[in-house]
């Protein structure tokens, strides 16, 4: 009875389109070439060396970026801009190919299995936030399965520490083919802030990655966008 009353009073608490433009979100950092003087202060400032010089231009590797914002406040010329564009998901080596396969085999739905390898739990929080009733990722036919046998792909968060490597491989090979690997977060790309640690390996040296979703942690919106991109829904 209490539930009914509450439901009537507050109505439906969700949003029609989860991947709306969010002006508060952090997002792709862009370089304004007219303002940039190549002083390279941002390169020294970057804690994970995601900034480099390419063809006499500053290049920012979004996939490795942890979006701490230190470079934005360092730049005296205002050449670095936070665009608030969280739509940064990129395909990995086999991305385009698997995109075709997914469309043929799975058509409209996708069942995923989440495997946390070495993340700090922030990516896991955001991953579980995609299932809350504000974002409700299941409306797109994307669900999280309890067993790799039922899954079409795994979502990996974090770098791969030595102790979990075996479990990760077993989960991967327990899935039926074609199987996907989605890397969520900067750590799953190159180890992020943990890349220099003694017990950590890069995910793409162990498994073929189909999709990278950058961010530290990527917001639920970014995750939903990435998976939809892979499913050819956008």
């Amino acid at each position, binding site marked *: 009875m209490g539930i009914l009353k509450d439901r009537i009073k507050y109505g439906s608490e969700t949003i029609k389109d989860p991947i709306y433009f969010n002006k*508060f979100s952090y997002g792709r950092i862009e370089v304004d070439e007219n303002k940039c003087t190549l002083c390279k202060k941002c390169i020294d400032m970057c804690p994970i060396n995601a900034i480099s010089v390419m063809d006499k231009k500053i290049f920012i590797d979004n996939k490795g970026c942890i979006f701490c*914002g*230190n470079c934005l406040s360092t730049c005296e010329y205002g050449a670095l801009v936070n665009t608030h564009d969280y739509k940064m998901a990129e395909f990995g080596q086999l991305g385009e190919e698997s995109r075709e396969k997914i469309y043929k085999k799975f058509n409209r739905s996708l069942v995923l299995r989440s495997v*946390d*390898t070495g993340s700090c*739990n*922030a990516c896991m929080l955001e991953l579980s936030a995609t299932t809350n009733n504000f974002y409700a990722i299941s409306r797109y036919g994307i669900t999280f399965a309890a067993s790799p046998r039922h899954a079409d792909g795994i979502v990996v968060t974090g770098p791969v520490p030595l*102790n979990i490597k075996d479990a990760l491989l077993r*989960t991967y090979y327990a899935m039926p083919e074609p199987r996907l690997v989605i890397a969520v977060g900067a750590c799953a790309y190159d180890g992020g802030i943990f890349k220099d640690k*003694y017990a950590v390996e890069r995910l793409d040296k162990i498994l073929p990655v189909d999709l990278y979703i950058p961010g530290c942690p990527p917001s639920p919106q970014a995750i939903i966008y990435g998976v939809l991109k892979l499913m050819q829904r956008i």
Partner: protein
Amino acid sequence: MRFNEMIKELEQEFVYEVKNTNEIYVTLDKSSVIDVVSDMISKYKLHFVAQFCVENHDGFTINIVLSNRRNGYYVILRYTTGNEVISLESIIHQASLFEREIVDLFRLSIHGSSDNRNLVKHEIWQANVYPLRKNFKFKEKVSAKYEIPEYRFKEIRVDGAHQIPVGPVHAGIIEPGHFRFSVIGEDIKNLEIRLMYKHRGVENLCKNVIAENLNLVFERIAGESSVAYNEAYALLVEKILGIEVTREAKIVRTILLELERIYNFLDDIAGICVDVGYSYPAKKYSYLSEQIHQLCEKISGNRLLRNSIVPGGINIAITPEKLSAILETIKSVNNRFEGIVDMTMNSVPFLDRVEITGVVDNEIAEKLILTGVVGRASRIRYDVRHSFPYEMYGEIKKSINVETIGGVFERYKLKIAEIREAFNLSSQIKHVNKRKININLPENKEAFISVETVKGELLVYVRTGKDNKFDRIYFKTPSFTNWNGLTYAVLGEIVPDFPLCNKSFNMSYSENDR
């Protein structure tokens, strides 16, 4: 016993040194360690917090950290040793956990302990690597063994007993860890938890990152307690450099810390409702938590408030618009929250599942040194915000929320109480500007700091080194000791109640494994 009285007592017997106003360093002889520690605990009513090792050029120093919870100071007992750790297992139940960690990372041996198994290093590790030793090079990678020996779990093997292995990859969206149940009939008779699957080597990394960027590493040790870890780092640097931040900055920090508490505990109680199968409140709680996350994104540009607290001040500007956003959201979430709490408290099936489930007695909780909500649910009257007040807590935190029975329901109620308290605290905020300082660390200084994260007491030790870097950083994370509480909570319960107990503890794997 007050700080001054303690010093007078120590003067007669020991060589001691006072640093940073509330840390007493006592140097001991290796042979007298056990006697002194048991004396300190029984006679002076000090509480064991942690035990860790620091490498010097002429050997190792073992530090045993004790704290006085009433008057807020630490007593650090230290002795130097060449190759062995004296086991405190006979006095402190959880000591072997700390000792096994030291052995794995420093190549020492334990003298007089019953448990010599590896803790951090699983079987797959190559032999003879000791990553916290000075001769272990930074960026060097540990390689895997080709043949992996078997790990022996503690199991009950009698007629009718069977074993249930769970993990390390779990069925939900959670972190990895292995649980081995021994079950007779329906009741759980024994549970062994095996963790450290996520061991990445944070302490080694911290030594090699310059002080300016270190807060970014701190906040990535446990994602759900990002603010608290950041706060710990800021307090440490301020303690070492002797700076005081402005009152306004303190207020903002307190509110950021409390916002973090709100969304974490909302997620926790949502989890409890899910595991009971009561989905409506669960969905609503997580919806409220989502609103707080979005509020955090509005104030700091990050849903987990990352990089917002820095040594010397705060890294975000609090403008009038942000201010009104905070007050509005808190008000609306608060109203909605109370309605849903009522819904659960009036539901008989819900209460039937959570009441007297997963009970940890006060006696056991004391023995296991449980901290945080988990400890307070079992009548341990300890809250870091009260004993070692930081930021505004000295003024506003006047009482400690405590429950007696120590079951799932008590933890549920306490988490609700903490959320209510956090709502009350967030009405004092003012307009504040960004402020950041350059850090220039002096060499060879030491400091300890305690912070109450959402999981419990976090203790961090640092010693500064050369080139604006730290020489040794040690974390005693709340989950490190609290995980063992779960093994006692589930005894005698049925297996389907395990997720419920687990969710009511909701310890972090990441900060435990580091």
